[in-house]
């Protein structure tokens, strides 16, 4: 008789009930009745708030049909909304590419074995992460001619577009540097050691082992950061760059006096773009958690930028 080794089945846990949550038990009959009652009560409360809002807006003539009239005109879409959207996307895409380059350079620089590369790279990253994007944009706009003047040169000031891109690049590049560093660090140490043991050099370990696996882990976080970049491009309004907020909301509102419709249209465009990017990030995260190609754990999409100096570890 041959003994066939029976591999023990992995212990399967009892499947959870569908609605099991750490906070609540599955409701029984009484709780269900109470929940139904509360559903009705809160529905009425929300409807009441909505009705009050509509009544208030109507009182100020903000809901009149004629305020939507400009949006039946193709020129308004063409000259204001699409014009602004194109400028926003232009600034976002250029800044995203530059920020990625900045992030790769400073993220890898911060992991260097040489102190004279590591420390300055770290200082730059932490400086730009600790100050608001807006004051970088102000300085990008006002600073260069004055600095050039001190060197006896004359240069024209940066355009609004360049200032927006500069501010977005420096801030988001620094955040991406942290994401890239965390992504590379999330690859288990054994991977790098295995690389060295088969005779790869530092650059080979980085390029052939750490980066390919790290990218899978950091992609969701990078795409999440692009949402921040896209939203921050609206700061361009403050420095008079004709972005979606400036052209699609402020100018439309100023020319046609339709504040509420303009706000609704522009908000819808921003929310749609950002939610699409957000879903893409979540999809990437699910995919990278599923795939067995990387030994690194996905950094996740999180709720924002990696922690500031001193706040926890990523």
């Amino acid at each position: 008789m041959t003994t066939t080794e029976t591999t023990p089945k992995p212990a399967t846990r009892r499947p959870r009930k569908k609605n099991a949550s750490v906070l609540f038990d599955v409701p029984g009959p009484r709780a269900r009745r109470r929940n139904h009652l509360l559903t009705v009560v809160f529905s009425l409360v929300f409807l009441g708030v909505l009705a009050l809002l509509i009544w208030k807006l109507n009182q100020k003539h903000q809901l009149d049909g004629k305020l939507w009239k400009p949006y039946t005109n193709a020129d308004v879409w063409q000259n204001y909304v699409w014009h602004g959207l194109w400028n926003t996307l232009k600034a976002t895409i250029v800044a995203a590419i530059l920020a990625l380059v900045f992030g790769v350079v400073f993220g890898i620089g911060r992991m260097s074995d040489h102190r004279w590369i590591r420390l300055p790279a770290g200082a730059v990253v932490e400086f730009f992460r600790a100050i608001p994007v807006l004051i970088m944009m102000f300085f990008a706009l006002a600073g260069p001619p004055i600095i050039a003047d001190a060197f006896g040169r004359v240069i024209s000031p940066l355009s609004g577009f360049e200032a927006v891109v500069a501010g977005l690049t420096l801030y988001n590049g620094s955040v991406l540097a942290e994401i890239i560093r965390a992504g590379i660090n999330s690859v288990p140490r054994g991977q790098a050691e295995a690389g060295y043991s088969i005779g790869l050099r530092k650059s080979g370990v980085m390029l052939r082992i750490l980066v390919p696996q790290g990218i899978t882990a950091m992609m969701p976080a990078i795409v999440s950061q692009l949402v921040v970049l896209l939203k921050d491009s609206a700061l361009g309004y403050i420095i008079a760059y004709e972005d979606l907020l400036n052209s699609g909301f402020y100018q439309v509102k100023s020319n046609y006096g339709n504040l509420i419709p303009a706000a609704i249209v522009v908000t819808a465009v921003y929310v749609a773009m950002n939610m699409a990017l957000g879903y893409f990030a979540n999809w990437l995260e699910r995919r990278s958690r599923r795939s067995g190609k990387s030994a690194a754990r996905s950094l996740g999409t999180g709720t924002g930028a990696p922690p500031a100096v001193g706040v926890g570890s990523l």
Partner: protein
Amino acid sequence: MNLHQLLDFAPVFDHLGQILSGFWTTVRLSAATAVFALIIGTAVAGMRVSPIPVLRAAGTLYVNIFRNTPLTLILLFCGLGLRDTLGLWTNADASLSGYWLSVLGLSVYTAAFICESLRAGINTVPLGQAEAARSIGLTFNQSLRLVVLPQAFRSVIAPLGSVLIAMIKNTSVALVAGSVEAAAVMKQMFDDVGGTIPVFLGFAIGYMILTLPTGYFFGWLAKRMAVSR
């Protein structure tokens, strides 16, 4: 090359009073926003994890709208929309109405992020903890109060710190709603004395004095309160 002109710190010290009053407004905005954003954020987080579908849907709607809308748009709407068009807070004097409109805009925006951090914290508590609490006979309230929420709050300290630091930096946008805080003072100084490196550095250091200690404090607190699992 004219180093003296490039690194002339005199304008910073000449306008020190103005700069400090700008940062004082930044601090006041941050403090009030932190309080209101925590209250609204906790309420919305409660809605998002509640067993009542209507509340969950409303919470999700709130977070999706305010998290995905640029803060500049929200604050601009507070200034142009709520004050100029709908006539809220118009009777107060200009700087006060600008302050409270900024606090309102910053609070509703930051609350969406606080809600998401809190919800993520609740999700880090393993289901087994709640099941164990029930199985030793704790009631719903006891298991929430003694087991689930203490663990959730501790794991949420570091993310909340990050959100609050981002909020401090975001107060710079409040100038579009009419607050004269540090960024507005800096813009004014750039117009008056020019955008020199010392002026920029002065304001950058001012912001770092606000953000870095906050970061270290929350890092220390998070480490101290960490749940060992």
